[in-house]
């Protein structure tokens, strides 16, 4: 394609092609310094005009690639960066086979990983982003990759997708040059992408042993309760797009994770109390 970029993110290599320059430029800025794959890529994403003339007239971006959603509506060129990110999400959600894929944020300390999982909007991306600036290493905000052979978590540090109020929270914490453009009017409201910090990038290839699973929920008075292992297992299968297709290997990996890790559900009224609870539960799990 006319414009393209190859990116190595954790164990996955993407090639993103585009009929327009601007999304590739925005991606290159956001992912400056990420390794070049230097080999055949695992997944391809292509941003294409929906009809040939829509390349120039009211430009309309359709997300194509190795894996697609056939009915998806096209997006405006102004949201091209978002389209590229959604394209990468789609490849992972539909095509990932070498790891058990969990919809979860994860951070690491001392070689051990904290997994934050649960419904979107519960604030796990924001919590992970904040922890990443408070002495933890960010492994990922969207997907956690569980190794099928060794049960360790692999980092997948994509740009963090911040929505609405979370954008303001992180703008207060982090230098402006780590942000992509603010995109208003998306189906989820305002979105702004934030680059992981140097520590996350340097340690991208280092796996971590899962040590604690948390189900955070925003908007309630601070509280924590243990979660039964069978319930954790059930919830994690719901948070995985490829559990079923991995068969026995998926079963072993997930039962291993659940059997080896304590789990808790935490309710929190604000991010500071969430971080306090996380630190406390982490100390107890050691």
């Amino acid at each position: 394609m006319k414009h393209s970029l190859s990116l190595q993110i954790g164990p996955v290599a993407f090639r993103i092609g585009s009929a327009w320059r601007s999304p590739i430029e925005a991606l290159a800025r956001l992912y400056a310094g990420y390794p070049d794959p230097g080999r055949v890529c695992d997944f391809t994403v292509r941003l294409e005009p929906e009809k040939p003339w829509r390349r120039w007239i009211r430009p309309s971006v359709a997300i194509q690639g190795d894996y697609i959603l056939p009915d998806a509506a096209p997006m405006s060129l102004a949201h091209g960066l978002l389209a590229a990110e959604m394209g990468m999400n789609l490849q992972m959600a539909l095509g990932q086979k070498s790891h058990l894929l969990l919809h979860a944020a994860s951070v690491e300390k001392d070689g051990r990983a904290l997994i934050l999982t649960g419904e979107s909007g519960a604030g796990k991306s924001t919590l992970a982003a904040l922890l990443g600036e408070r002495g933890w290493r960010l492994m990922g905000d969207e997907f956690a990759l569980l190794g099928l052979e060794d049960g360790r978590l692999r980092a997948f540090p994509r740009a963090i997708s911040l929505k609405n109020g979370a954008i303001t929270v992180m703008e207060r914490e982090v230098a402006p040059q780590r942000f992509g453009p603010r995109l208003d009017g998306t189906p989820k409201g305002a979105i702004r992408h934030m680059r992981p910090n140097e520590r996350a990038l340097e340690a991208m290839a280092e796996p971590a042993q899962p040590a604690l699973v948390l189900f955070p929920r925003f908007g309630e008075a601070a509280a924590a309760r243990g979660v039964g292992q069978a319930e954790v297992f059930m919830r994690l299968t719901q948070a995985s797009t490829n559990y079923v297709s991995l068969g026995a290997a998926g079963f072993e990996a997930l039962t291993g994770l659940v059997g080896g890790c304590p789990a808790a559900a935490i309710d929190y009224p604000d991010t500071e109390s969430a971080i306090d609870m996380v630190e406390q539960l982490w100390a107890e799990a050691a």
Partner: protein
Amino acid sequence: MSGTDDSKFVPSRRTVLALGAAAASTVVTIRPALAQTAGSVLNCEIPVPGPQAAGSYVAPDGSLVAPGTPGAAPPLLRPLTGEQAKLLLRGSTPPGVNPQSAQAYANYIRRLQAGMSGFTCYASLQMPR
């Protein structure tokens, strides 16, 4: 933590085993939210409510409430297909769905967020043509 060994159920003799009522349920099967491979949106499924809230009723605004709450819609016996979900989101009532419950189910779907294994199913439903 314990529990990951290949354990057979041979507990010590004379343990009490409760058989439960005939109407109780003891088997839950993990169901894929996506079809086998790259998704046709027609093959995705949305259970109403999701398995972690099984039994809850759906209030008109789409939130989950206690079973039997007046004015709330009951859980669906079968998950919604992608096509049914699309019709609901457009304000129609698909065949097989009670018209009085349609709005509750539609609002429930709207409240579903990406991040669960129904992620791509919901993502495609979010972007109607």
